[in-house]
């Protein structure tokens, strides 16, 4: 029983890491831009596809498979740098003054477009590039074999991203400007913060994080059409549960979802699918503004 629980916790942690990586970029973008970015799932998928293509190119060129890991980072940087500014400047920037629902729908339209773009570029055959997983090997817990990638690397990267982001947001000037905009957009703009640049930077950064989520997932899963769709709903649930733009909240929510899911798979598999939603409803019932969300001052 003790071993069983340990295994459930390990599985939960590994899954939580994935969930966090999927949701953190969306949380950041939502916190600052207040745009619920449906295209986030597309960026996730494109990150995965670009990483897989890079990995395949590396393998084809005969380079060492040790390069496969940094290639994941490179892929997310490429996707962020290419798509982020393009979409933010060309599309989002035109509608910041419009209603939120229009902003959301714009990203929905983008999602539909990008969905077909992926299909045109990468086809419909599942793509799998697991060199990074293989290069790291396995590790045993009791007599249960785990991959190092899943047990150490994914949670490690998630933790690093969490700590790095917190440091960035609290200790650097850019980070504190972002926090200021998250907390009170009007006040921050009144203080002379150049909101345009903050938006551009945050969106690009968020896209890169989404792509990183996809890139990190790509060695463990097949990339198929529609892979982004599933990510969207999950990350939406995380953002709402966490509280607006709360990175720590996203981490805690991911942890709850990860552990909840693995406990469900072990003891009540029927409930696995609805775990994120049950957690969300439960959290919002007790804390109407999310785990870490503060009620926005009601304006009279």
């Amino acid at each position: 029983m003790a071993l069983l629980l340990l295994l459930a916790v390990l599985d939960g942690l590994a899954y939580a890491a994935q969930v966090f990586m999927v949701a953190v970029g969306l949380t950041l973008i939502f916190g600052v831009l207040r745009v619920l970015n449906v295209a986030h799932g597309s960026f996730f998928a494109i990150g995965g596809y670009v990483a897989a293509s890079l990995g395949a190119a590396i393998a084809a060129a005969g380079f060492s498979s040790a390069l496969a890991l940094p290639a994941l980072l490179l892929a997310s940087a490429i996707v962020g740098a290419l798509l982020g500014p393009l979409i933010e400047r060309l599309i989002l920037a035109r509608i910041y003054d419009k209603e939120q629902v229009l902003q959301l729908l714009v990203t929905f339209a983008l999602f539909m477009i990008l969905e077909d773009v992926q299909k045109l570029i990468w086809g419909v055959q599942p793509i799998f590039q697991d060199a990074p997983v293989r290069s790291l090997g396995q590790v045993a817990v009791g007599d249960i074999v785990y991959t190092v990638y899943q047990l150490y690397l994914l949670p490690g990267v998630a933790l690093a991203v969490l700590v790095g982001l917190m440091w960035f947001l609290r200790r650097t000037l850019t980070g504190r400007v972002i926090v200021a905009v998250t907390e009170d957009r009007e006040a921050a703009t009144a203080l002379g913060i150049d909101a345009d640049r903050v938006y551009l930077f945050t969106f690009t950064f968020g896209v890169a994080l989404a792509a990183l989520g996809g890139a990190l997932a790509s060695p463990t899963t097949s990339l198929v059409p529609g892979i982004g769709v599933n990510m969207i709903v999950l990350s939406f649930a995380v953002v709402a549960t966490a509280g607006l733009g709360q990175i720590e909240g996203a981490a805690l929510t991911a942890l709850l979802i990860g552990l909840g899911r693995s406990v469900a798979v072990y003891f009540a598999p029927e409930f696995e699918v609805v775990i994120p939603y049950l957690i969300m409803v439960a959290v919002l019932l007790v804390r109407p503004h999310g785990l870490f969300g503060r009620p926005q001052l009601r304006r009279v």
Partner: protein
Amino acid sequence: MLTSTRRHVLSATAALAVPALLPRSAIAQRRPSELKVGISTFLSGPASVFGVPGRNAADLLIEQMNRAGGIGGVPVRSIVIDEAPGVDFLLGECRRLVQNEGVDAMLASISSGSCLAVAPLAEQLRMPTILWDCGTQRIFEEASYRYAVRTQANAVPEIVAPLLYLAKVRPDFRTLAVVNQDYAWGRDSWAIWKAAMDAVKPGVRVVAELFPRFGATDFSTEITRLLALRPDVIFSTSWGGELDTFIRQAAERRLFERSTFVLPLAESSLERVGKTLPEGVIVGARGDHWFLHPTAKDTPLLRDFVQSYRSRFNLYPIYPTFHMAQALFALKAAYEKAIAANGGTWPSREQLMDTLRGLEFDHLTGRMKIREDGQGLEPMLIGMTKHVPEYPFPVIDRMVLFPPELTMNPIGTKGLDWVRLLTPAAVQRAPAEIPYRA
């Protein structure tokens, strides 16, 4: 005021004019100048893994057919529609094909839900419809259709055959776990397997029933469970990207070393997963087809098809391409038989359907028959993976071709009831194994 009213009328007419140009009815008893075939398949979403190869096969085969004179001397043209957006959209599209494009026949759908919705519509519209890939046995068990037939087997033999194979090659297994996708096929196939297993090999203990969400990308928790439970057999009817992912993740964590896998749809993943899939895994192909089919692989028909498919799409054909071929070959055979019986005149829709029922026709890997209730009868190819130097992916060894008599319920029975009547003796009636030959 007057002018503006006129403008209204004008714009309304303009809006009407577009669709009004389109409709035309086509109930042709005369030999048409072109045979239009509507094809519904997945062009987007995860099931496009099957849908696009199916469409590709149709494109290739129709080209070849037309070069050889088409069907009954009439060239064939396909109109493809996407079934991914759901039933309401698909039914609208089917109506468009029938009532506007005037198609002469429909080849319908991969998803069982789509087929269950399209078959009644075919009936209403009197549209000859061939169900080309969907698997649910419910269609012809719960209703009878005059205008719909199916040119492949269904879920019952697709599940019974691998079970009989397993019982034959590993008669000693005592525990089993299932990992199926959480949707109708995953649930249906498990219900059939469980009922049949209790009849053929009573006393096997099911240690885990795992149904990860459809579209899941991570099976690590399930794999941990399976590693800890150590079942003798792991059964999964998953397919596409999810099956690939499951195989990779299981292989990386050495699950294959602990349990025997039964993967009835894995033929369609072999090329993609490559030798990550170890030897000794029981695999199936949803019917009597594989590009190295043991009895047909040296026939010019299959060899040429595999070659031209490969050179065009850079992949080996997988089961949906064979299913598409079966549907097109059946259509051609039925038309030509009906024309001959008609003394050379073009058959009516009803004549076509009457001919399809009971039709025997040749396809890429052999000869098959459509039963009187519209259900196709084909053998089931089941075998075991083996690594050979000729291919960068596993091939199928120790193949058994289960005949329909052994695995398919007779007309008028329900598959799920029928499998409960199976006996352990059924295992012994399985034909001999055929080894892989290079």
